[in-house]
């Protein structure tokens, strides 16, 4: 049975404390947390320096009491480690691998040290990596790192472009050329054994390449989930269709989430996603990928093909 339009998102990412921007106060945080709980959101991922917010403990408690499963992203700074030590471990902790990648290199020793530091306060930290342009070829090395360090979970989310994407940021997104390089590397035998790793890959084309490691099927994928099972909240509590679709639906400080999810703006986005992109017309695999990530293709492609950024050509 195909999945219908949902009453509310199932998964929300939420920017808590991005550098240089004013975070919500305690009252506002709890108001948004109440909204997520009341709407029945299953999973909430706190991003953009959540551990830097002075009210993080209260927010975590509110979300957990409201029935949300919480994940939290950390760059493992000394200040974050101090906060982590106070928080317990009733949440999923993701270490942001991006901090350990620069100039086309993965700083594996520094990442291993960070993992050990985090493991002193949190039993089973996972890794999260959103590779930039030119970095995707580092993935086999990261997978080997996970195998050696017995990391149990690695998440590769879709690219996040935030609420006000800058051109430099968009220029830094990986494309099908990066995927081609990774494919060559995998063909050369660079993919390590799975070794118990739970690999979560959001982009369908990357998932397809890594299928020997991911296992399973995506039979219930059903296409881009922006403004359906996915949603994103900015630091200012604006609700977005997802973190890759920079068109706000309204403020959660002034509107009910359930109402915003029934709004004309949301329904228009879902209608747009139902349209077959020009670049996918006649593609034999459209019923598998449904055009992939529509937010990135809509806002980041320089042509009007509308295909997923990692899709090389019509098949």
């Amino acid at each position: 049975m195909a999945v219908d339009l949902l009453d509310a998102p199932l998964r929300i990412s939420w920017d808590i404390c991005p550098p240089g921007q004013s975070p919500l106060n305690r009252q506002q945080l709890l108001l948004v947390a109440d909204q997520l709980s009341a709407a029945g959101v299953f999973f909430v991922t706190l991003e953009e320096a959540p551990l830097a917010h002075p009210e993080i403990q209260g927010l975590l408690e509110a979300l957990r009491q409201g029935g949300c499963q919480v994940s939290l992203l950390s760059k493992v700074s000394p200040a974050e480690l101090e906060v982590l030590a106070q928080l317990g471990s009733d949440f999923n902790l993701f270490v942001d691998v991006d901090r350990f990648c620069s100039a086309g290199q993965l700083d594996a020793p520094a990442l291993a040290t960070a993992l050990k530091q985090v493991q002193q306060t949190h039993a089973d930290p996972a890794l999260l990596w959103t590779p930039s342009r030119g970095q995707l070829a580092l993935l086999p090395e990261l997978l080997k790192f996970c195998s050696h360090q017995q990391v149990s979970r690695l998440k590769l989310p879709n690219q996040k472009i935030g609420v006000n994407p800058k051109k430099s940021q968009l220029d830094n997104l990986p494309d099908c050329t990066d995927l081609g390089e990774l494919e060559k590397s995998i063909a050369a035998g660079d993919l390590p054994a799975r070794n118990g790793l739970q690999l979560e890959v959001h982009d369908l084309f990357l998932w397809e390449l890594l299928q020997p490691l991911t296992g399973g099927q995506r039979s219930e994928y059903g296409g881009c989930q922006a403004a359906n099972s996915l949603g994103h909240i900015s630091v200012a509590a604006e609700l977005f269709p997802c973190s890759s679709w920079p068109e706000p639906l309204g403020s959660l400080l002034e509107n009910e989430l359930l109402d915003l999810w029934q709004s004309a703006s949301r329904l228009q986005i879902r209608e747009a996603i139902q349209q077959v992109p020009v670049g996918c017309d006649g593609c034999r695999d459209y019923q598998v990928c449904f055009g992939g990530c529509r937010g990135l293709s809509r806002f980041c492609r320089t042509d009007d093909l509308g295909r997923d950024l990692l899709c090389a050509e019509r098949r």
Partner: protein
Amino acid sequence: MAVLLRNPDIVWRREKRREEQVLQELEEGGDVEDRGTVILLISGMMHQLNLLGGMIWDLCDGSRDQEQIVDNLLEEFDVEREIISADVTDFVADLLKRGWLIYG
């Protein structure tokens, strides 16, 4: 007979607004068999149950056996007991096989 219980590892949600729409469509004589009213997330995959499946799922809270679930549904639907009973038997057998329901 043993009581039926939802697998506690499965996260799920009733889609209340959609359920209201589906009930209205049903009253108007519409075909709602493929309209989902309960969302389940299992191993990262999203699944949905239709109105009857969702009601059975909701009733599998560890306090009722299969016959008691049929009794509850007969209060909601004006159909023969045999018909509802057969639907419940099929649905429960399928979900037990998938591991989504367990005996409590």
